[in-house]
């Protein structure tokens, strides 16, 4: 049983959205994954295209918990604003703080992540900060009151898997809150490895893995998780 804030989850898998060939395949993949939490991002809408697809329209909003991220934010202020925008949807009170501090590596900005986490916690959000695999930073985020820690396995989108398992193990060992291994998971093997490190409660799996490995009807890799 995974507990984050006041929510309890049976599944250890958080599922990323996006990058699926179409929304029908996404729906099938989501249904068969067994996940209870879907992640998504917040973006400006193209107001001149009323026909643009709505990625939520195929999803049963009553069946899943939603975890918005603050991707696109470059500092704490922007992250807090995105979190509040997402919260206004009425769909979520959790937020994944994601503040990119380096455009080349897409690694998170530790200072701004700490600031945003502190502000959002004070405002009553359930906060899951995305962080590097820095052990001390993970501890400081937990000390602030973060409800879970989301260290990256390797840089976002790299698919390199867990490049520093020792650090992840230290983070998992010291944490009293769930540790959700986040970016860089490139295969089901990486996900399994993260769990083997001991106490990694669940894995966030970027949809890119699914879309690359799943069959057109979205079935194939579910057994791997």
């Amino acid at each position, binding site marked *: 049983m995974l507990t984050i804030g006041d929510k309890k989850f049976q599944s250890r898998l958080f599922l*990323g*959205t*996006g*990058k*699926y060939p179409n929304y029908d395949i*996404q729906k099938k993949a989501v249904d068969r994954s067994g996940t209870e939490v879907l*992640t*998504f*991002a*917040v*973006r*400006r*809408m193209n*107001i001149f295209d*009323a026909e643009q697809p*709505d*990625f*939520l*329209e195929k999803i049963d909003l009553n069946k899943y918990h939603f975890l*918005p*991220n603050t*991707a696109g934010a470059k500092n704490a202020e922007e992250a807090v604003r995105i979190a*509040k*925008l*997402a919260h*206004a*949807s*009425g769909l979520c009170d959790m937020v994944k703080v994601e503040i990119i501090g380096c455009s080349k590596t897409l690694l998170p900005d530790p200072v701004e992540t700490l600031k945003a986490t502190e502000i959002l916690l004070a405002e009553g959000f359930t906060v899951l900060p995305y962080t590097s695999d820095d052990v001390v930073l993970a501890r400081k985020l937990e000390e602030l009151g973060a409800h879970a820690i989301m260290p990256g396995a390797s840089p*976002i989108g790299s698919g390199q898997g867990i490049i520093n398992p020792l650090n992840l193990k230290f983070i998992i060992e010291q944490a009293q809150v769930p540790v959700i291994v*986040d*970016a860089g998971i490139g295969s089901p093997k990486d996900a399994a490895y993260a769990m083997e490190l001991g106490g990694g409660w669940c894995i*966030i799996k*970027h*949809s890119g893995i699914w879309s690359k490995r799943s069959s057109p009807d979205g079935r194939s890799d579910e057994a791997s998780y």
Partner: protein
Amino acid sequence: MKIRVNGEGVQLKQPIQTVEELLHHLNLEKKSLIIEHNHIILKKDQHRESQVSDGDQFEIVHFVGGG
């Protein structure tokens, strides 16, 4: 009546009283979206009462796939 939406100037050819009317005018009334009106984030039940004036600024965002 001219407003700014997502950083762009939008000339409205007919008078718009409320945010709800604005969404209808833009054919977005059935979309899942969130609106920031003059830097104030609106909940859905505020769309009907939030008054639109010339020069107002809007951010209209929605959810997209992400990890």
